[in-house]
């Protein structure tokens, strides 16, 4: 009970201090700014974004088309008669002359043609949508039925992207025949419903989708589509909604970061540390108001947009992850400048990790590595399963937990008020979790707990590389995957070396490498079995998390690689850390290549 009371006291204190510290006009001004934000958003929605205005200059001889194209601000349109247009065609990026579009032979001309083509497509659609006889204008409708393949990723494990190999004869199914009913030849909906969905598609072709080079087809009410609606839907609306969710969370975690930083300025936090309240209670107490604020904002937004309450569940680990990072950033930065840069850096990376996979929500399983995909799916009306939840949030729960632990361990006078540089401070932070007495045991644990971070970094690489053409994505993934692992394993060894170079007798060196390798392997396998089955079964997964099943081989690999780094450090000193890492990465890559591509066999 005592701890609980402490937490509440600290939380109250934190709220009071934040409110008094902010000068009196901050809150009213913030409210005014938010009101202005809403107004400006309305204005922007009305007038549109004018970022690409006047990129192309085009000449048109047809008044109807000139009018259609002039409504697109990207064009500066000149309506001229045939002869003048033909004589001056060099002056334009594209001319529309007697019913044909003639682009200039420049990059800009080709881009102009693409844009005209898209605008023309929209124009024809709007004409056809007005037709009395809808099925004369849209004679072809497609009903998409998706089939779940049980093989999913295993077929691609051999390194082949595509498994459906063309043969001379029709393929014979091996398993039991499915009983597929013959589809009905008629549409189950009225033509008025179809007309509504067509109109929706037309209007949803907003300026945002310009950047994506397609006529977007967000979820239309019916499952029937015309051929031009066939592109995979890009969940733009949902993604913008997510932005509205995440943005306030960034702001709130900034306040927490600043509150931690403020304790450290001019040793203001000394008072707090001298009280009998324990470090965990201080941290939880200080964090509580922000946590509640963030949850309240999320809940409020959910109710406001009328979304299912289940979208808050994936947000909780994200909120904790932000707060944990805010804690660490607030604890390590020496000055406001550093705080700003690190937090901007962190939020860019976190945003990328969270957002970009969710763009592929309707296309690929890979999107599930971001918890936000669960929100996109829920907003689209697809419920997520418990496995999905575990899969996309596990890394966030684990990393947040580890970071909180590190923060609590280091929440002491010595660490908080130290004036060392950033890297030294991070090393000190790691160092305080390495016990002097049980060095090897703590090395084992350190590497075990480094695994969620390693996975996160590797997932990030996966997101970046999976779209590149096949050989490049594999090679880059092998390289970066290996390098990230080697760097993570070197952290513990380097910290020990920096603390006391004489610790590394040959015997201790071998023992430390062994502990590191074991810890790394144990963490890797545990986390893999628990969560990542979906990714590990793909060809990409097999590179990152090779060798499930055989345990002694990867152990030997980890051991050798760490030994190389440690030996470099012992013989060459700190300068040799980087060459040691490079060497270890090379060894790791060769090992992976041997197993994936069957080299050397």
């Amino acid at each position, binding site marked *: 009970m005592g701890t609980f009371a402490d937490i509440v006291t600290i939380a109250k204190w934190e709220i009071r201090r934040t409110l008094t510290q902010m000068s009196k006009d901050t809150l009213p001004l913030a409210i005014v*700014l938010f009101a202005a934000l809403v107004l400006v958003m309305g204005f922007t929605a009305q007038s549109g974004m004018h970022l690409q205005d006047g990129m192309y200059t085009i000449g048109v001889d047809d008044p109807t088309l000139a009018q259609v194209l002039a409504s697109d601000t990207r064009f500066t349109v000149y309506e001229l008669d045939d002869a003048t247009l033909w004589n001056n065609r060099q002056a334009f990026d594209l001319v529309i002359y007697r019913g044909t579009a003639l682009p200039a032979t420049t990059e800009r001309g080709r881009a102009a043609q693409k844009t005209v083509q898209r605008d023309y497509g929209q124009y024809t659609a709007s004409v056809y949508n007005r037709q009395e006889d809808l099925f*004369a204008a849209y004679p072809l409708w497609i009903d998409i039925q998706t089939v779940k393949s049980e093989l999913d990723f295993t077929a691609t494990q051999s390194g082949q992207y595509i498994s459906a190999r063309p043969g001379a004869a029709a393929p014979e199914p091996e398993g039991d025949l499915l009983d597929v009913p013959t589809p009905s030849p008629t549409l189950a909906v009225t033509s008025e419903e179809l007309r509504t969905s067509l109109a929706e598609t037309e209007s949803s072709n907003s300026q945002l989708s310009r950047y994506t080079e397609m006529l977007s087809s967000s979820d239309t009410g019916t499952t029937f589509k015309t051929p031009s609606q066939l592109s995979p839907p890009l969940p733009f609306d949902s993604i913008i909604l997510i932005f509205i969710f995440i943005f306030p969370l960034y702001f709130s975690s900034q306040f927490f970061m600043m509150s931690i930083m403020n304790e450290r300025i001019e040793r203001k936090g000394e008072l707090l540390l001298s009280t009998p309240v324990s470090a965990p209670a201080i941290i939880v107490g200080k964090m509580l108001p922000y946590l509640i604020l963030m949850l309240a904002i999320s809940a409020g937004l959910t109710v406001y947009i009328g979304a299912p309450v289940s979208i808050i569940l994936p947000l909780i680990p994200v909120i904790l992850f932000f707060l944990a990072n805010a804690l660490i950033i607030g604890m390590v930065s020496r000055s406001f400048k550093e705080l*700003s840069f690190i937090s901007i850096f962190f939020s860019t990376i976190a945003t990328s990790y969270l957002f970009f996979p969710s763009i592929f929500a309707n296309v690929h399983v890979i999107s599930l590595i971001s918890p936000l995909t669960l929100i996109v799916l829920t907003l689209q009306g697809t419920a997520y399963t418990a496995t999905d939840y575990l899969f996309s949030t596990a890394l966030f729960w684990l990393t947040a937990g580890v970071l909180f632990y590190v923060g609590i361990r280091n929440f002491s006078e010595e660490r908080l008020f130290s004036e060392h540089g950033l890297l030294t401070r991070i090393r000190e932070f790691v160092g305080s979790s390495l016990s002097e007495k049980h060095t090897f045991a703590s090395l084992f644990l350190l590497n075990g707990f480094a695994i969620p971070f390693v996975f996160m970094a590797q997932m990030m690489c996966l997101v970046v590389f999976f779209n590149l053409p096949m050989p490049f994505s594999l090679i880059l993934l092998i390289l970066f995957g290996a390098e990230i692992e080697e760097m993570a394993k070197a952290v513990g060894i380097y910290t020990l070396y920096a603390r006391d170079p004489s610790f590394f007798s040959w015997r201790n060196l071998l023992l430390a490498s062994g502990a590191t390798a074991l810890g790394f392997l144990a963490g890797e396998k545990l986390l893999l079995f628990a969560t990542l089955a979906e990714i590990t079964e793909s060809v990409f997964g097999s590179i990152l998390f090779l060798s499930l099943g055989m345990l002694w081989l990867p152990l030997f690999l980890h051991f050798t690689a760490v030994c190389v780094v440690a030996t470099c450090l012992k013989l060459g000193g700190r300068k040799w850390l980087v060459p040691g890492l490079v060497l270890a990465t090379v060894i790791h890559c060769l090992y992976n290549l041997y197993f994936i591509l069957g080299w050397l066999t």
Partner: protein
Amino acid sequence: MKAKNIAIIVKKELRGLMNERTILLAILLQLFVALFSSFLMVGLTSMYDPSSLSKYSRFRYSVAYVGNDSALNDYLSNSRDFTVFSMELSPAVTALQERKLAAVVYVPDTAPDAQDPVKITLYTLENDLQSAIVNVKLKDIFLSYEKDLRTLRKARITEQPVPLAFNPTRGGGDFFEFVYGLLIPLLLFMPAIIASALVIDLITEEYQHETLETLIASPVTFSEMVWGKVIACEILIPIQAGAWIFLLVINRIAILNIPQIFVLVTISSLVPILIGALTALHYRERTAAQFIFSTALVVVLLLILAIPANPLNMVTRLAVGSAGTGQWLVLAGVAVAAVVFSVLLQLYAGKVGREHHAG
């Protein structure tokens, strides 16, 4: 105001930035943004226009054609993207599930000129990258078939759109709008946002670390100190913008009118820096200042983007070479804004400085 004193502050702040290696983080950050932009570009394009990656265009996908024979079958058979097999529905869908086929198309026996539409059922794999690609390729074929059907039913259509024919282009032009209409203005104005956040940190730090007294005791006046910090941040703008232009150019992205872009970006970036400095002088405390500033920044940015011929748009137009004489008006407008805010800052800093010297 003495230029010498301002120069001392500028040097001190720049040295501080170098020592803390925060600049390194800023550079890393920008590289990261560039990396992700390219990822987005390649990723989305390959997703929605797979032929842009040559790897896919060489591949022939197996599809099953089920049901009534139609012109669609001919289109599929003649396509270089597909190998077509005539099959029964149940074995075809089973084979699809076993990944022996890429898609199954079922066509009913609706007459092409019937009153009702032709409803095709397309079976694809759920949540699969390959089926996304196959869908895009099938889309072209369906579009051709739709055109045929529409021609057959022409008599029933009361209003035809104005015809417009396009010649096929030799590729290219895919990334043009993304690069020039989004990436370039974004990259060139990002230093402004970083620099204005930085100026707030530099000013509030003097207050919160209580180093202000020392400074006031020195021969440097308060206004000189503020201007020194503003200039230190402003110096970073042309350096970062220049680095970006250089990187883009060596990536063979042709940028026209580089000198004008340079001047426009440097002058317009001064405005948010000055606003940041004013906010910091008012609040003297980082949390409040950054909070108010960043909210205000979002409001102002949105507002600016909603106005035609804004500086960001002008960068785009200059880069593609379609700026015209409007660019000088925009430049003049931005310069006036910079002067107005400079005067405001000078007045405000003078007032705050007198308070400090008095108290």
